[in-house]
C-alpha cells in the first residue's frame, strides 16, 4: 500500500512556537482548562506547539491522568501492610499489577471501563474494550488466559436497551471468541439509572513465568523504539478534529472516525507475536497503545526508563495519510504496541514480525537526555520532559460533601413502606414470590449472554458462569490455578457509598472463597458520575475510603484498576458503581467447588446468621423501592467464612457451595438446584427460631457473610466440628433430594424444577429474542 505520510503540512515546530508566542491555540476545544494550559506554558517556558498541545491535552485528561481521583486513590497504596505486599511482584502504576502464584508462576489481571464508546456503538465499543484490556495484560509479558465482563444496562423493557444489549454482547463475543480467550464470568444488571450511560467493563487475566515479567520502560541509550501492529488511523480523534487547524494550509483533512473499529484477528496475531518476542527475550520494554496512543506510549516509556527518547513521526505507518502530527500523536487506533529493542536484537525482532505478517516501523531511539524529542521530517515539533506529560499532570482536590438528601434516603426503610404492603406469607404467595424473584431481570439466568461466549477454548476452564467464580488452571502438571469474581451493587452504594463499596469487595471475596480459592488481590473499576458534582465526588471519596479500609481488614491489596467518571445522562449521575474484581489462588484446581447440589442425601448447611435486611435488596427493587441502609458489613465474619469454605474444599468436606448475595437464600437455593437439575428438601424453622426472623425474611433478606454448602454424610461430623471450633454459626437446613425434581421448602408451596427453570431461563430470551 502506498499510504505515504503527507509531508506537505505547514508544521508548527518548536522553533516556530518560540518565534510566534501569541498564536491562538485550540486548548479549550481539546479539553484543557485555562489554568491547565497556563501550566503547560509554564512547564515549557513557551507556548506549546500544536503537537505538544495534543499530547498534553490527552495525557492530562481525566481518563489518562486521574486528576480528580488521584488524591483519593493514594489510599490503595498507603493502606497496605508488609504481609499484603509479600506476593505483589508489580504494584499499582504499571499497565497491570502482578501477583506471585508460587512455583515460579505469576498472574496479572486488571479491569477497565469502556462505557461511553459502548453507548455510541455498542458492538465496537464493547469489542475494543476487550481488545484494550487484553493488550494491557500482554504488555506485562503475560499470556492472556481469560476474560470477564461486568455489564450494566438500562431498564430491560426500554426500547434502547435491546440495541445496547445485542451490540455489546455480540461485540464481547465477537472479539473475545476470536482471540481464543475463554469468557468465564461477569455480571448483568438492569437499572434505568444506566439508560443513557451503560457500563461495559472488561477484565482480563494473564499468566507468566517470573522471568518473563516486562515493564513499560525505555532503558539503554541507543536502543531502538519500534511501533508494530495495526496502522495508525484517525480513530478516537473525533468527528471534526480541531487539530485540522494545525496544518495551517488549504488541504481539507478527511473525516475522522466517530468510533474505533476493532480487528480481533490482528489482536490475536499480535498476542502470539508478542509472546514469541518475550520467549526470545527480544524486547527490553513494551507498552500497549490505548487511550492517548503514541503520546502515552512514548512519554510513559521514556519517563519510566532512562528519561529520554527521540522519535521521527513521519516513520509511523498510516492508514490515513491526511493525519496531522498532532492527530498521529493522539490517535487511538487499536491493535498497536510499542517496544524498545537492543540493536543486536533487531534482526531477530524483524524475523518474528515477518513470520506473523505484522507490520512494524522503527521510530527512533532511547537517549539519556531526559527529553522526549519528536521530529517531523527532521524538524523538532515536540521537545518536552516526558515526566511532565506522563506523570506530573494536574491534580485536583475537588470539593465534596455528603448530599443533603442522603439522610432522608437512609431513613426511608423498605420495611413498613408503601411498597412493602402485602408482604407474601402464605405458602402459595411465597412460592410465587420465589418464582418472581428468580425470573426478574437481575436474578434471571444469564445463559442467553454466556452462550454467546466461548468458555472452553484453552482447555483450562475448571469453572465458569453461573458458578460463583471463574476458575482457570495455570499449570497443567500441578493443577495450580486462579479464581476470579467481579461484583458491584450500585443500589447498596447509592444508599451508603462507604459500606456499599465494601459490600462489593466482600461479595467478590466471598465468591472466590466459595469456589475454594484463597483470595490474593483486588482490581477495581470505579464507575461514577461527574467529579465536579460535590455529591458524586463524596460518593467517590467514600467508596475509595471504604474499599481501601476493607482491603486492609481482608488482607488483600489493590494491584490496579481504572476510574471512569462523568457517567451520567444530562445532569443525572448513574448509581455509584465500584466494580470490584478479586483474584484467588488454588494449589490444585481439582479441588474447586461447584455451586450445584450433587449427590442424593447430602446435607445442606447454611453458614452465617440472618437478620432482617431488606433495604436495597432485590426484593425491594422488584417492589420499586430504594431507600434505607444496605446490609451490614462484617469483614471479620467474611474472613472466617472464607477460611471455612477454603479448608472444607481443600479437605474434601463439601461437594457444593454457593454464596448468598442478591436475592438472599431464596435465590441461592434455586440456583443450586437448577445448576444440575437436582432437587432438595429444606426446612427453615430452626433458622427462624435461632435468628428471630420470619420465613419471608429468611428467604429474601440479603444479610452478608453467608453461604450454603452440600456436605456428604461421611463428612458431616468433621464439618460440624470445624465450624464449631471456629465459632461460626452453621445450621443444617435440608438435604439433597436428587430425583424428586422439586425444591421443597417447608412453608412454601412445592417448586417444580422444570417450572423454575423455565421461569429462570425465559426472561432474557423474552426481551432479546
Amino acid at each position, binding site marked *: *500500500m*502506498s499510504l505515504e505520510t503527507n509531508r506537505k503540512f505547514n508544521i508548527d515546530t518548536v522553533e516556530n512556537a518560540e518565534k510566534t508566542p501569541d498564536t491562538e491555540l485550540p486548548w479549550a476545544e481539546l479539553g484543557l482548562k485555562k489554568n491547565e494550559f497556563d501550566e503547560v506554558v509554564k512547564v515549557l517556558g513557551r507556548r506549546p506547539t500544536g503537537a505538544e498541545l495534543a499530547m498534553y491535552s490527552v495525557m492530562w485528561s481525566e481518563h489518562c491522568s486521574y486528576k480528580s481521583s488521584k488524591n483519593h486513590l493514594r489510599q490503595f497504596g498507603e493502606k497496605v501492610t508488609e504481609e499484603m505486599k509479600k506476593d505483589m511482584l508489580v504494584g499499582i502504576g504499571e499497565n497491570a499489577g502482578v501477583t506471585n502464584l508460587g512455583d515460579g508462576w505469576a498472574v496479572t489481571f486488571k479491569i477497565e471501563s469502556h462505557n461511553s464508546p459502548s453507548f*455510541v*456503538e455498542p458492538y*465496537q465499543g464493547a469489542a475494543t474494550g476487550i481488545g484494550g484490556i487484553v493488550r494491557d495484560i500482554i504488555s506485562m509479558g503475560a499470556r492472556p488466559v481469560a476474560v470477564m465482563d461486568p455489564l450494566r444496562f438500562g431498564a430491560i423493557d426500554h426500547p434502547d436497551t435491546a440495541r445496547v444489549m445485542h451490540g455489546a454482547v455480540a461485540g464481547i463475543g465477537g472479539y473475545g471468541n476470536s482471540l481464543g480467550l475463554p469468557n468465564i464470568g461477569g455480571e448483568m444488571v438492569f437499572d434505568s439509572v444506566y439508560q443513557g450511560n451503560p457500563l461495559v467493563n472488561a477484565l482480563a487475566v494473564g499468566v507468566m513465568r517470573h522471568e518473563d515479567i516486562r515493564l513499560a520502560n525505555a532503558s539503554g541509550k541507543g536502543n531502538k523504539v519500534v511501533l508494530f501492529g*495495526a496502522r495508525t*488511523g*484517525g*480513530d478516537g480523534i473525533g468527528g471534526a478534529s480541531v487539530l485540522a487547524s494545525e496544518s495551517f494550509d488549504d488541504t481539507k483533512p*478527511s*473525516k*475522522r*472516525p*466517530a*468510533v*474505533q*473499529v*476493532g*480487528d*480481533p*484477528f*490482528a489482536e490475536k496475531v499480535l498476542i502470539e507475536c508478542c509472546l514469541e518476542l518475550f520467549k526470545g527475550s527480544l524486547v527490553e520494554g513494551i507498552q500497549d497503545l490505548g487511550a492517548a496512543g503514541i503520546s502515552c506510549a512514548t512519554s510513559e516509556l521514556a519517563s519510566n526508563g532512562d528519561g529520554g527518547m527521540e522519535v521521527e513521526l513521519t516513520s509511523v505507518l498510516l*492508514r*490515513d495519510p491526511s493525519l496531522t502530527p498532532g492527530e498521529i500523536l493522539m490517535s487511538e*487506533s*487499536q491493535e498497536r504496541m510499542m517496544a524498545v529493542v537492543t540493536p543486536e536484537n533487531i534482526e531477530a525482532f524483524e524475523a518474528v514480525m515477518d513470520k506473523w*505478517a505484522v507490520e512494524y516501523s522503527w521510530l527512533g531511539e532511547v537517549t539519556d537526555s531526559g527529553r522526549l524529542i519528536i521530529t517531523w521530517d527532521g524538524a523538532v515539533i515536540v521537545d518536552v520532559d516526558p515526566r511532565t506529560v506522563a506523570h506530573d499532570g494536574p491534580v485536583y482536590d475537588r470539593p465534596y460533601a455528603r448530599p443533603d438528601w442522603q439522610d432522608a434516603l437512609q431513613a426511608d426503610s423498605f420495611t413498613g413502606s408503601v411498597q412493602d404492603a402485602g408482604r407474601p406469607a402464605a405458602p402459595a404467595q411465597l412460592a410465587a414470590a420465589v418464582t418472581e424473584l428468580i425470573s426478574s431481570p437481575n436474578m434471571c439466568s444469564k445463559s442467553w449472554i454466556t452462550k454467546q461466549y466461548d468458555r472452553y477454548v484453552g482447555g483450562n476452564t475448571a469453572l465458569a458462569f453461573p458458578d460463583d467464580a471463574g476458575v482457570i488452571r495455570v499449570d497443567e502438571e500441578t493443577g495450580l490455578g486462579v479464581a476470579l469474581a467481579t461484583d458491584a451493587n450500585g443500589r447498596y452504594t447509592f444508599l451508603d457509598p462507604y459500606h456499599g463499596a465494601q459490600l462489593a469487595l466482600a461479595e467478590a471475596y466471598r465468591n472466590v472463597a466459595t469456589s475454594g480459592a484463597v483470595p490474593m488481590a483486588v482490581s477495581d473499576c470505579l464507575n461514577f458520575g461527574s467529579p465536579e458534582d460535590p455529591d458524586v465526588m463524596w460518593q467517590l471519596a467514600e467508596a475509595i475510603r471504604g474499599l481501601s479500609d476493607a482491603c486492609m481488614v481482608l488482607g488483600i491489596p489493590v494491584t490496579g484498576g481504572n476510574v471512569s467518571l462523568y457517567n451520567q445522562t444530562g445532569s443525572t449521575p448513574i448509581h455509584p458503581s465500584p466494580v470490584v474484581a478479586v483474584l484467588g489462588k488454588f494449589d490444585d484446581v481439582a479441588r474447586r467447588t461447584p455451586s450445584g447440589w450433587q449427590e442424593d442425601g447430602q446435607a445442606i448447611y447454611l453458614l452465617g446468621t440472618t437478620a432482617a435486611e431488606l433495604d436495597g435488596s432485590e426484593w425491594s427493587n422488584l417492589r420499586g423501592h430504594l431507600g434505607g441502609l444496605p446490609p451490614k458489613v462484617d469483614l471479620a465474619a467474611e474472613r472466617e467464612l472464607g477460611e471455612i469454605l477454603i479448608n472444607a474444599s481443600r479437605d474434601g468436606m463439601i461437594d457444593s457451595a454457593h454464596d448468598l448475595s442478591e436475592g438472599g437464600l431464596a435465590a441461592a437455593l434455586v440456583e443450586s438446584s437448577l445448576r444440575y437439575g437436582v432437587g432438595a428438601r429444606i426446612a427453615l424453622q430452626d433458622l427462624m427460631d435461632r435468628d428471630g426472623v420470619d420465613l419471608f425474611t429468611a428467604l429474601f433478606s440479603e444479610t452478608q457473610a453467608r453461604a450454603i454448602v452440600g456436605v456428604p454424610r461421611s463428612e458431616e461430623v468433621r464439618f460440624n466440628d470445624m465450624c464449631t471450633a471456629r465459632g461460626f454459626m452453621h445450621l443444617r437446613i435440608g438435604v439433597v433430594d436428587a430425583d424428586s425434581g422439586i425444591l421443597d421448602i417447608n412453608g412454601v408451596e412445592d417448586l417444580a424444577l422444570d417450572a423454575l427453570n423455565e421461569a429462570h431461563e425465559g426472561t432474557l430470551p423474552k426481551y432479546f429474542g
Partner: protein
Amino acid sequence: MPRIVVDVMPKPEILDPQGKAIVGALPRLGFTSFSSVRQGKRFELTVDGEVTEEILAQAREAAETMLSNPVIEDVVNVEVLA
C-alpha cells in the same frame, strides 16, 4: 419482479479488517496488482409491482436507517435493477 439494489460500504476513514486481511492474502496467490481492498454489502429488495418514486424513497430511508449503520458505514448506491 423488480428489485432495488442497495450497496453499503464501510466509511473510508473507518478500519476495514476484512478488506485488510484479503489484500494481505491476494499476493500469496499471485494477484499482485491490488493495493487495497474494502469489503461492503449488497442488499436486494424485491418489490411486488412497479417501483415508484415513493418506494424508492422508502428504500433510501431503509438503507440509511436500517441496512447501514451510519456510525461506521455509508450507503453508496441505491438503484433499481431492471
